[in-house]
């Protein structure tokens, strides 16, 4: 029964994709949106079914492998259409399908005026299917297939407004960087397969225990390659630069793919392959250090930039850094706990941002916003809930989940304490930048759009690219003519209020000493871990939580001081430290660095090859050459292929003579 639920989880979004993409012409009005939502709801219900049926089993029996058919069983490769239903995949399926459903419902309204409505939902359903395939896949091949599929879905949705140059460029960038990760993943899979002879999870794990000793060179290499894959998908330094640009996609897409689900695939990957990482602690440590750097780095960037969606994007990079640290330090339940709560509050924040951007008629710069509190009470409250959760303010969910990771780092002792300290520093920055947004958008003097909205009118402006200011029309390939805000749309309200409740109360499944639901639920997956049962004492956790709460309060207080109490202080600071400000605003010059070290040299190389190789060798020698060769060949061919029978018979006889000669030579 468990496996049936597992297959049904995959089936629903697949059917949704097919139905919507085939019926895009005949589906009237918003039916495509509702169909898509229903499909994902079906998947969510099945995920609950899987959850219940897996809980009915004994703990030892909670890893169910089911093969629908064998795809290839040849040349020592044994690959099937196999899913693995275990607590980890069920948890991921629940989070993915649950959050996806709410974002689908939100999109039904939010994308209402767009000319690519059905296409949007077909893509979105396809994404959910791919993501579920990724987390349910029972072997490395299906993982890679799902991995590539979500990359493709992400590309399609980032460049959803395909007539926008910046959007297509961002899609391209995301795709290219993700392919770097794909290569890492594929090579890692090859290494594991060549040493363990298996591709399915259980076989790989069992085989690696036999094939490798701790910190064996190959397993460290394999884990580092897995990390490359995970980092590209999860936008961790140094493969993070695509995620902020991915905000070119529609806002619900940012909420779903580039905040709540797809970008956490890296965390899932590390958690899923934990037996390998535990065999290669060096690789795990390198991963943890890089992720620590990422969450501090991204938090500093988020303090200086002014694009609303990009701020939240950097916050996503930062929060995923926490999760990666959580799983790379082998505190799996903590990392996954944060993954779950983050999905709730980050999706909520993006939905709020979507509503704000709609009220501002497409404007995304927070410098141009202000005083929206009275005009958008609902958005304000829900955004506030999300912000408090992100800042880690008690008793919101982010407080419990983030601090569980930090407390675990302290508990590991040794140099891991430094990671814990960094965790608090970044938490302080997080609280600060989060409330920078809240105060600047909702408080202060209402801007013109806010005043209009208070009078009951939605602002309308010429449609422009928020990045470049180019004028756009509203036909397909550009955003639609209408804007939708949460205050006026019931489906948006529904999705946001549910997420607000989850962002507030989602932490209750992981209160130290009171409820360790998540940890106990995940136990069967991580039973083989050496770190199973290792956890800070409850006292230590509560002390950690208290410090975390104080940090959050300090950060919020600082933001209040800078942006409400003494407005202008921030400008003064920026003036006093122009270099630091510029450094942060340019996000530590990562894009420029890559431009200089990777893009430019490659372009130069391409230009050179075009000049020298293409023109010189290929066109000159081969084509001019080859042009001549092909032309010559074609002349010969045309001479031979002249339609005259006698010519054909001649060649036939020549061939025959050749064959005969060959065989007669054999006889001597």
């Amino acid at each position, binding site marked *: 029964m468990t496996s049936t639920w597992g297959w049904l989880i995959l089936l629903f979004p697949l059917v949704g994709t097919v139905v919507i993409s085939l019926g895009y012409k005949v589906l009237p009005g918003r039916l495509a949106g509702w169909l898509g939502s229903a499909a994902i709801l079906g998947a969510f219900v099945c995920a609950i079914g899987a959850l219940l049926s897996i809980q009915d089993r004994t703990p030892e029996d909670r890893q169910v492998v089911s093969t629908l*058919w*064998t*795809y290839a069983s*040849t*040349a020592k490769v044994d690959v099937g259409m196999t899913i693995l239903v275990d607590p980890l995949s069920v948890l991921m399926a629940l989070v993915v399908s649950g959050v996806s459903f709410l974002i689908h419902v939100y999109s039904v309204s939010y994308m209402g005026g767009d000319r690519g409505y059905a296409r949007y939902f077909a893509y979105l359903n396809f994404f959910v299917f791919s993501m579920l395939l990724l987390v349910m896949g029972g072997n490395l091949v299906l993982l890679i297939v799902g991995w590539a599929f979500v990359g493709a879905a992400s590309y399609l949705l980032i460049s959803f407004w395909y007539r926008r140059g910046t959007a297509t460029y961002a899609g391209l960038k995301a795709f290219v960087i993700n392919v770097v990760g794909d290569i890492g993943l594929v090579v890692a899979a090859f290494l594991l397969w060549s040493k363990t002879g298996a591709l399915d999870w259980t076989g790989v794990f069992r085989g690696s225990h036999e094939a490798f000793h701790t910190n064996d060179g190959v397993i460290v290499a394999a884990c580092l390659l897995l990390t490359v894959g995970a980092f590209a998908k999860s936008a961790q330094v140094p493969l993070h630069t695509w995620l902020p640009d991915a905000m070119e996609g529609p806002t619900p897409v940012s909420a779903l793919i580039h905040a709540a689900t797809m970008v956490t695939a890296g965390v899932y990957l590390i958690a899923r392959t934990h037996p390998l990482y535990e065999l290669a602690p060096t690789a795990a440590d390198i991963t943890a250090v890089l992720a620590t750097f990422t969450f501090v780095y991204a938090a500093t960037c988020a303090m200086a930039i002014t694009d609303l969606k990009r701020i939240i994007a950097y916050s996503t990079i930062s929060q995923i850094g926490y999760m990666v640290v959580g799983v790379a330090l082998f505190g799996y339940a903590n990392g996954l706990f944060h993954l779950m709560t983050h999905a709730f509050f980050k999706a909520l924040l993006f939905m709020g941002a979507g509503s704000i951007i709609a009220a501002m008629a497409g404007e995304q710069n927070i410098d141009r916003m202000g005083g929206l509190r009275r005009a958008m009470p609902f958005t304000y409250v829900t955004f506030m809930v999300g912000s408090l959760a992100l800042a880690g303010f008690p008793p919101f969910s982010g407080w419990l989940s983030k601090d569980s990771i930090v407390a675990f780092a302290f508990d590991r002792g040794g140099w891991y304490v430094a990671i814990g300290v960094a965790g608090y520093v970044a938490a302080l920055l997080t609280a600060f930048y989060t409330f920078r947004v809240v105060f600047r958008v909702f408080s202060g003097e209402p801007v013109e759009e806010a005043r209009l909205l208070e009078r009951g009118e939605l602002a309308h402006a010429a449609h422009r690219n928020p990045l470049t200011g180019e004028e756009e029309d509203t036909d397909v390939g550009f955003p639609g003519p209408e804007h939708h805000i949460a205050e006026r749309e019931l489906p948006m309200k529904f999705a946001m209020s549910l997420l607000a409740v989850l962002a507030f109360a989602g932490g209750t499944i992981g209160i130290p000493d009171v409820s360790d639901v998540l940890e106990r639920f995940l136990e069967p997956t991580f039973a083989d871990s050496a770190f199973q049962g290792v956890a800070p004492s409850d006292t230590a956790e509560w002390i950690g939580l208290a410090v975390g709460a104080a940090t959050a309060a300090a950060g919020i207080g600082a933001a209040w001081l800078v942006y409400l109490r003494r407005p202008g202080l921030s400008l003064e600071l920026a003036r006093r430290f122009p270099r630091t400000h510029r450094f942060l605003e340019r996000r530590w010059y990562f894009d420029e660095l890559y431009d200089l070290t990777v893009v430019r040299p490659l372009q130069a190389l391409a230009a050179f090859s075009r000049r020298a190789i293409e023109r010189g060798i290929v066109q000159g020698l081969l084509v001019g050459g080859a042009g001549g060769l092909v032309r010559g*060949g*074609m002349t010969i*061919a045309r001479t*031979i*292929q002249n*339609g005259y*029978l006698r*010519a*054909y*018979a001649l*060649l*036939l006889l*020549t*061939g*025959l003579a050749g*064959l*005969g000669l*060959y*065989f*007669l030579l*054999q*006889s*001597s």
Partner: protein
Amino acid sequence: MILPLADVPAPHIDYKGLSPLIALVGGTVLVLMAALLRGRFVQRSLLPLLTLGTLGAAMGLSIWVWSPGDHRPIVESALEVDALALSLSLVFYVAGIATVLLAHRSAALSDAGAGEYYTLLLSSVTGMVLLAEAANLITLFVGIELLSIPLYVLCASQVRRRASLEAGLKYLVIGSVGSATLLYGLALIYGAAGTTSFAGIDRALGDTVSLSDPLLLTGIALACAGLAFKASVAPFHQWTPDVYQGAPTPVTAFMAVATKAAAFAIFLRLFDSALLSAQFQWAPALAALATITIVVGNVGAIAQDSLKRMLAWSGVAQAGYILAGVVVGTQKGLEATVFYLLVYLLMNVAAFAVVIARERVSEWGDGMRALEGLGRAAPWLAWPMTIAMLALAGFPATAGFIGKFYLIDAAVDGDYAWLGVVIVAGSMISLVYYLRVVAVMWMGPMEVRLPSLPGRPRTAKPVGGWSPEADAWAQPEVTLVAVACAAATMFFGIWPNPLFDLVADVGTSLASLVG
């Protein structure tokens, strides 16, 4: 001297095993007789239905006869039935059924007479089934002639079109040269081995006949050339583009898949069972032919403007790929060959169905431009064509990918890794012309600049008026064939297990092959 009849031992005949052939021959006679009745109903509906019924019945009987791992003579020392014969028979029947559907509105039907057309088609199928079941050289040759002669006529059946007549004549002349060469080769092999039965030749080769016997080797060379002609393997492929283009397109589709499968059936029977002991002698020659074929076919296809010619050249290249499965002379090679022939049927019929649908309505005939903008105007035709092209190129998630993978796997496994590399290189070149078709259909109006052959755009009689919507549904049976074949191509690309099971059964049918 007159032998008393009683002294000739009657061969044992297994009528159950023979039943598909009996059904075919009976159906052929029935169709010919029924064609004497005049009347629109008979000519337009009854005859095709009878033909379809015959083919369906034969197919049903073949499946009924089939029992896994079975290998038994049905007419002693002349015909035997095994999984190889039965699975290839399925290819012939399906190709026949598709041809009947595709030809339903063909001008050839009224030109040549529906009864004659269907009778010839059925005789050709009978010949193919006969040679797939052949157990000695004589039956083999009878089968080959029975399949070829009706095809010569079918090629010329559009008697009011000069190109069709020319194709028929050309095919007849060159085909006779090929048949004669083959017959000569078979005769020499008989002369060397002293027996016509495949099993006997196999025994003799290991025993009494020296493998360097010039008589035997000359025979093999001639047989090889004759078969290469039938399978359009370079350098014996020259007739292919001309005949494919000239023949009525449904006949072309039939030739492209069924004749090719039949030719490879003989290749398998003759080389991988009767002459297997001489593998060291013939395998290098066949491998060289395969390489030449892959190169020539792929290069030739690039510059084609006519879809039929392009598919003809692509068929030449594909013959080269399939030949790799014969060269290795292993069980896996046999499995891969049959697997590829099965999926080749699906993807090629889908492609030809779309060509037929377009050439009847487009002013560009079978030119590349006939497909322009098809993605928008008739997605139900554009998708099958896209899938067929991608499958022929070997894209993952289509059956073509698995087929090609299987062939490469077999080549590498049989110590012909370099041939696997040639297949991959050939597939890379083939993307040039396969993807251009996809681009023309989906990427809107574009100038297809090709070094085209001189010729004016043809004016074709519109079937459903000139509007795209009317055209798309004017020939539902053609669309049906295209969609069904493309769907099966996708289906077996995602779930190849049924075909794997089938060819695993085929793999055991030639006893002499090693696993």
